[in-house]
């Protein structure tokens, strides 16, 4: 099993500092899309590095290359390992994409708050809305809800990407999620594509076509422009901002609200977030 919170063997009298990572082994890499890979990570002795809740993040580090915060895409109900879906877009992610199964990385966490799966979301109908790589943080919640199916009402998942090739976790979506009773998956891609007979169009317009009633809680994640228009759509459908959750992403270094860079207004996104309700987001200064 993993190393739990314990006294630091190097520094007696202190807990192991949260800035110190653990060694994790990449036990599997799945290529999701041309620029997204999902990395399965386990402790060297097997099992998960730590326990987490849906929506929480962890710092993934390649020594000498860099360290960055990623959402944990696997559900806590997965007792064997943790997964990170990572898009290639910078120096660190470029390096991570060059790794192979068996390689080691450093991981520390979990950090931040989580989606209120055991409180506010419990017993509710749920509407998940995601675009592109933003399915990664939502997948953790979705699988948590599906594994505790009896605790939640109807589940609708609206997910879109640029093309069919850019849909992350497509296999799981089609072979697992779609087959569960009471779960409706609505996929869409931006432009027509050969071999795609599903919906075509941007997520916000598809959302409007689907015209959901407000008897549900929405969880929305995607690029800023998608968020903006989806939020507008949800408002038009009559959703209150207290009914919509999202997760924010900012530059982070420490993960515990001390290094200062993810500070917006009185909040530290790494510690007070990354999960916010939109009425809380509205209270933040416009710097995210």
């Amino acid at each position, binding site marked *: 099993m993993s190393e739990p919170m314990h006294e630091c063997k190097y520094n007696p009298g202190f807990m192991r500092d949260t*800035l110190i990572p653990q060694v994790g082994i990449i036990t599997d890499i799945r290529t999701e899309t041309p620029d997204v890979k999902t990395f399965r990570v386990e402790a060297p002795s097997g099992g998960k590095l730590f326990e987490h809740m849906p929506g929480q993040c962890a710092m993934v580090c390649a*020594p000498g290359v860099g360290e960055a915060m990623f959402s944990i895409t696997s559900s806590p109900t997965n007792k064997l390992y943790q997964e990170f879906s990572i898009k290639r877009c910078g120096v660190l992610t470029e390096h991570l994409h060059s790794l192979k199964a068996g390689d*080691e990385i*450093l991981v520390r966490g979990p950090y931040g708050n989580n989606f209120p799966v055991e409180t506010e979301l419990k017993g509710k109908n749920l509407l998940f809305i995601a675009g592109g790589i933003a399915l990664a943080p939502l997948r953790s919640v979705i699988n948590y809800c599906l594994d505790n199916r009896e605790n939640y009402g109807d589940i609708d998942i609206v997910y879109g990407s640029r093309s069919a090739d850019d849909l992350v976790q497509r296999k799981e979506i089609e072979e697992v999620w779609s087959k569960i009773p009471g779960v409706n998956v609505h996929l869409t891609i931006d432009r027509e594509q050969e071999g795609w007979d599903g919906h075509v169009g941007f997520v916000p317009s598809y959302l409007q076509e689907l015209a959901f009633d407000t008897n549900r809680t929405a969880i929305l994640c995607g690029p800023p422009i998608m968020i903006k228009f989806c939020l507008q759509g949800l408002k038009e459908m009559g959703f209150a901002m207290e009914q919509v959750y999202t997760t924010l992403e900012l*530059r982070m270094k420490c993960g515990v609200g001390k*290094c200062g*860079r993810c*500070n917006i207004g*009185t909040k530290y996104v790494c510690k007070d977030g990354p999960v916010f309700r939109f009425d809380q987001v509205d209270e933040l200064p416009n710097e995210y």
Partner: protein
Amino acid sequence: MYKIQKADLPKLYASIAAESDLFLPVKVADQTNFGLYTETADVDIDTLKTVKSAKDIFFPQSETLYKVRRENDNFSIDVEQHRTSPFVVFGIRGCDVRAMTVLDKVFLSEPIDSYYAARRQMGTIVSLACGRPDTSCFCKVFGIDCAEPEGDVVTWLVGKVLYWQPKTKKGEALTEKVASLLEKADEAMVESAKNAIRAIVKKLPYANLSLEKWGAAAADANFDSKLWEEMYKPCLACGTCTFVCPTCQCYDIKDYDTGSSVQRYRCWDSCMYSDFTMMAHGNNRTSQMQRFRQRFMHKLAYFPANNQGMFSCVGCGRCVDKCPSHLNIVKVIKAFEKEGV
């Protein structure tokens, strides 16, 4: 109350340094900063303000957190040893001592920063009252009395005599160790020195700045003020204000490849730098106006909102003295006082 002749201070330093590390103001190439005492060090307790504050001693400008070694494709992590030996900091001024309380709010809140916590546990603070406060000082605004600073031991330099008053258990323990160098003193001289200092403080041009427009409520009220746009323009986007500030604590974590291992270290960072919030897919503060605003909003609004009204400024005035463009927190406070928001 004890006393020691100023001329005998080298003996006191040597006596403390024989048992533990002693940090105190040392002049190097004409500038005074906190440094480790050695027999040859040019100790300078007359200079009012060290260029950098004493925060360096508890939160170093750069420090290694751990080393990662790679052997046969396996990583192993060597966590850096914390400070385990006691040390003494001599000659900290009242503003800088209070700044430690501000840093404590950050580093000693859960989860505790163990590197900082270890140094706080090991350090004994000997503060020094300010005989000659400067024009740029405004510690009074934050309820700091530079005539009677906080600290484990408080000292006053009055003429050719240093007066010494232990205030805490740590302070008493240190006093006991150097007892043979100290003699009993009465408090009359110190009392009149305090009064003289307080009389000067009253005359300081910034002593009566009003913080009425600041505090938790300012987080919303002042963010969209047009004043930011008017004030930021001369800002060079350097980190001088941040690095001389005793309460700025933002940091970066970086790698240093030594060849045989990767040293992961943390170093001071500045919200004034363009890459502070830069990440692979963009930057959420793209203009210097936003960065400038962030620094002051953090000190005067966000920090108090999260810390029961405590400001993240102690009025040391270093930024006032050192900003290459003569921008500073005093001007910001005054601008809002004058113009509203």
